[in-house]
């Protein structure tokens, strides 16, 4: 494995971008989960698919798109989708969640049209749906790295605002925070992370890398920074173990990464249960 990693550029690309994604997806995921936006991430990933499928179709018909990395149109679609979701959420003030099925079905609808026009599934498309170890190009890696920089800068600049908005939105507004703008930026950054992650985990599984490590970390963490720390550890573990398994078993990494995340989650839930049982038992013993 190590030898292969040293020799093959495609493996280096996959592992390097995997490790970057294992950092940024759970990092942003903590905010997504506590702000109850997990399903929005899912909707955005389907919009991204529409962009990718559109680009793959256009690459067959138009010379310009043949040279263009489909990721770019995917990013454009994801960012547009994030802005539209915000518009819709404001339009249906009392039924905010309606924005999710609207955008999600629009994404799938357009994807279906573009996939059909492009004469069905190609191996390229399969890679975008479930991730791929072999398809990550050097250019993809640079895009992922650039997005990671944007995410980290964004979170460093707005950490305290995002924390307050997540914890108590009304208080944040009463404090006079520009929450509308910070939220819009947050949605755009989320769209970027989704676009970056899908090369490795695939569009259909992107949101799981943002939510599963967080679900596990929230069972352990006392504080917010701790929750971020555990989520990143679990995310990295899932990506690295998942990629190694995908390489040896020759299966799509999206599957192995997500299944690893689920195993981690189950272990954490089980471990916590056992720990609580032990603590109650010793306390009972002390009282008796």
């Amino acid at each position, binding site marked *: 494995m190590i030898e292969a990693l040293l020799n093959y550029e495609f493996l280096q690309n996959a592992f390097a971008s995997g490790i970057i994604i294992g950092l940024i997806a759970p990092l942003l995921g903590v905010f997504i989960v*506590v702000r109850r936006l997990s399903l929005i991430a899912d909707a955005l990933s389907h919009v991204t698919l529409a962009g990718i499928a559109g680009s793959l179709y256009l690459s067959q018909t138009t010379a310009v798109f043949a040279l263009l990395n489909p990721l770019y149109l995917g990013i454009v679609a994801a960012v547009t989708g994030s802005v539209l979701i915000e518009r819709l959420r404001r339009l249906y003030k009392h039924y905010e969640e309606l924005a999710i099925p609207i955008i999600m079905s629009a994404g799938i609808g357009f994807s279906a049209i573009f996939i059909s026009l492009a004469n069905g599934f190609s191996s390229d498309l399969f890679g975008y749906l479930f991730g791929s170890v072999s398809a990550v190009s050097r250019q993809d890696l640079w895009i992922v790295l650039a997005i990671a920089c944007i995410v980290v800068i964004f979170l460093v*600049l707005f950490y*305290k*605002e995002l*924390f*307050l908005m*997540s*914890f*108590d939105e*009304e*208080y*944040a*507004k*009463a*404090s*006079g*925070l*520009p929450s509308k703008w910070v939220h819009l930026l947050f949605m755009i950054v989320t769209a970027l992370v989704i676009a970056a992650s899908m090369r490795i985990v695939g569009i259909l599984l992107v949101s799981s890398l943002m939510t599963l490590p967080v679900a596990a*970390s*929230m069972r352990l*963490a*006392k*504080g*917010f*920074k*701790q*929750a971020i720390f555990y989520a990143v550890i679990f995310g990295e573990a899932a990506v690295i173990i998942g990629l190694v398994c995908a390489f040896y078993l020759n299966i799509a990494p999206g599957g192995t990464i997500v299944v690893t995340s689920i195993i981690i989650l189950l272990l954490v839930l089980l471990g916590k249960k056992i720990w609580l049982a032990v603590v109650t038992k010793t306390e009972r013993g002390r009282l008796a």
Partner: protein
Amino acid sequence: MKAPYDIELNDVSFQYDQNIVLKNISLQVKQGDFLAVLGPNGSGKSTLLKIILGLLKPTSGTIKLFGEKSRDFKKREWLGYVSQKSNAFNTGFPATVYEVVQSGLVKKTGLFKNYPKDSLERVEKALNSVGMIDFINQSIGELSGGQQQRVFIARALVAEPKCLILDEPTVGIDHQHVQSFYNMLAELNRDQHLTLILVTHDVDTVSSKISHVACLNQTIHFHGFKNEFNQLSDEDRQAWYGHSVRKIHHMKSEGTQ
């Protein structure tokens, strides 16, 4: 020059769709006042607070905060806010007491900046004043309702506000802790000269601590010193409280037709 009033409302009205919630409210609050806003359910108490805080824009009328028009008022950290516990947050939220109180410094710190270096001391001081210093590293979800509410007061205090606005802060707190909660507010009012505006139903419990009373039911029926309030006749009180009973009754029958 120091403004004569911390909070000044002139002829403020608020309408939600076709419903008039507040009508021609004029109210002044001086520094160091401890004002209780009383009124039946649906009398517009929370709306009034939200208008003062800038969460809602009035349909008409003007608001001045510390002598400045609310629209132009930038020093939002001068106003501390404690909402009803029930809708404040999700108890599963992974945050320590320290992190929650520290977040009260967000506005004071400003955009693109890190929390100040002395934020630990500030948080400790705020937690001390509400008697919660021992819980600083605990998870907020592990605390009781009353303890959480004290933490939220500390969050409001950490930015050193000049005026604290509380919306039924004792909802969800067991009765035996309500008294000590109000004692703490009274101390803050007395020792730190903090202006307090409190929306509450606990008239009896709080009456010994407050300096002023405002009776609200769509409009202000009475605003003045506490002893003047105590001298109100039963008819006056009936006119204020009973009005809404008839009004709600009326609206209900309209709705069912």
